[in-house]
């Protein structure tokens, strides 16, 4: 997994609630092989018209947001399908962190496992962040995972919660399967104790 320690980037405002994984990566592209990359399909129907031309009104097609690594979203970001491709697609367009009021549970897990940092902040702080983005075109945020802080170029600073294990894995770039292989003995003991039906 790609480690995450600190990041400074322009932040992209996508202030919509319930942005689901079908919007992040439409289902019709899921049959593509992962190694070919999912970047072109990320937010496909929001970013592009049917003929493939860019939609100029979509925020990711506007300067200074192209290539930004931090997305500021509404509530329940990544709800819906468990497709991990939604995380891959965001990563393939350069996104390393998403800040939102809340996340879909499965998307949240998928993001953490793959080195995409999902940060949830309470509604009041999210409103301050979004207000800052409206006031300052190209506002940057700095994320410090070790300190669990988000600071904006506008002078605002917020602490964010994160599970201790997931934080450790992100900071170290630790792979979950490699971690679990250390406990195969316990798994074997469990299987001996309780034969699965």
């Amino acid at each position, binding site marked *: 997994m790609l480690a995450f320690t600190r990041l400074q980037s322009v932040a992209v405002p996508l*202030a*919509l*609630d*319930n942005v*689901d994984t*079908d*919007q992040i990566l*439409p*289902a*019709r592209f*899921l*049959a*593509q*092989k*992962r190694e070919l990359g999912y970047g072109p399909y990320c937010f496909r*129907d929001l970013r592009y018209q*049917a003929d493939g031309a860019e939609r100029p009104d979509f925020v990711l097609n506007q300067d200074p947001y192209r290539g930004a690594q931090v997305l500021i979203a*509404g*509530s*329940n970001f990544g*709800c*819906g*399908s*468990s*497709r*991990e*491709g939604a*995380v891959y697609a965001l990563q393939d367009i350069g996104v390393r962190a998403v800040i939102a009021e*809340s*996340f*879909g*549970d*499965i998307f949240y*897990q*998928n993001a953490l*496992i*793959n080195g995409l940092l999902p940060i949830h902040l309470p*509604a009041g702080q999210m409103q301050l962040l*979004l207000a800052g983005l409206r006031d300052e075109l190209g506002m940057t945020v700095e994320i410090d995972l070790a300190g669990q802080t988000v600071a904006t170029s506008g002078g605002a600073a917020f602490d964010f919660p994160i*599970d*201790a*294990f997931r934080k*450790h894995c992100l900071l170290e770039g630790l792979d*979950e*399967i490699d*971690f*679990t*292989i250390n*406990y*195969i003995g*316990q*798994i074997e003991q*469990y*299987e001996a104790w*309780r034969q*699965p*039906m």
Partner: protein
Amino acid sequence: MPPGETVPRSLFDKLWARHSVMEHPIAGTLLYIDRHLLHEGSRNGFALLKRKGLPVRRPDLTTATADHYAPTDNRSVETIDVRSRREIISDLSANTSAAGIKLFDLAHPRQGIVHVIGPELGLSLPGLTVICGDSHTATHGALGALAFGVGASQVAHALATQTLWQKKPKQMRIHLTGQLRPRVAAKDLILAIIARIGAAGGTGFAIEYCGAAVEALSIEGRLTLCNMTIEAGAKFGLVAPDEKTFDYVKGRPFSPTGDQWHQAVASWRALASENDARFDQEIEIDAGTVEPMVTWGTSPEDSVSVNGCVPDPTAIADPSRRASKQEALDYMGLSAGMPMADIRFDRVFIGSCTNGRIEDLRAAAEVLRGRRAVLPALVVPGSMAVREVAESEGLDRVFKDAGLEWRMSGCSMCVGMNGDLAKAGERCAATSNRNFVGRQGASVRTHLMSPAMAAVVALHGHAVDVTRS
């Protein structure tokens, strides 16, 4: 608490404790997985495993089916005109064959949607942990299982270790009192729940459904209820197993038999939540007040009674939420205050892991019998076994005589990835679970409803209260 007394436990507590391999000081609980169900989307999971050079640890506890990309007009992979779709089905065959995993492929008489065949075959049972790389895995919780969806990395983790690291969520109990009125279905009930608590209302929770209305539901109704728990934000949805559950499970191909059956039932009886079990949140809804529901927006929380009107987003105080709902109305081509019954449809889809079971098809057929549809419609059974039963009951004739298309099993129009699509800009009445932007095809407008309501739309071209028609 007096000495010797234990803390009263919920169904979820018992299932969690029973499957805890170990507790790690920071990683949480290492949960053992009794059943790992796979579909074509498992390809990335197998690829991760291959990169690590690891074998599948318990192929005997792993089962696969082709459903998401399955063509429903025939059973031949060769007829699929998109190479990537052919390949993903072929990859499932290759990956499962190499690992020694049982596959219900397109040629198999028991093939079907993973969340339909799991319970149907007795693969999913009370007291088990069930995972699948699909968010609707909570469906299996209707039998009293701890079932949840995962992504590709966790698919790989489970293939490699037969376990997953999980942090125990909070618990919510939803009491459904009273009784559903005739022709009001489990689908209406879950849409009403989601409208009440919101699409994120269950985030971070496991939800147990209980009460007289749940007890009165058939197992298929409970499967529908638990299926859409993820649409309320929760990845776990459960119903305590009871006599109905045991009757449903008994005699299925993978169910225990003989002495093992009696032992299993004895252990299953002990799973129900104890009287004073603690829940972090409790909600009560009178099922008798629920009317046939129809969604109007682009989230399952956007639903109202068929007798209601499209809500007005300007009444929403929160600016972000207001903007989202206005955007939903714009996408759906609707205006605030419009009666739901005035919405004109172009197409109907009856099927999916939510509503593709035999009772769902019977409910739709009851409405359609002896009448003619005015809209094109697909009826897609959730499994080939469901299709066989439906045909033995003559339901296929009812659908065909009404002008509907009778298909083979698969996920079909629920998700626009297998060739079954609505046309751009069309409005589709669907018995599936998601009305997201573009879910059934680019710029398609999806309205969720029950099978009986979808059948009514097929007949009239617009929604009519099925309890009055």
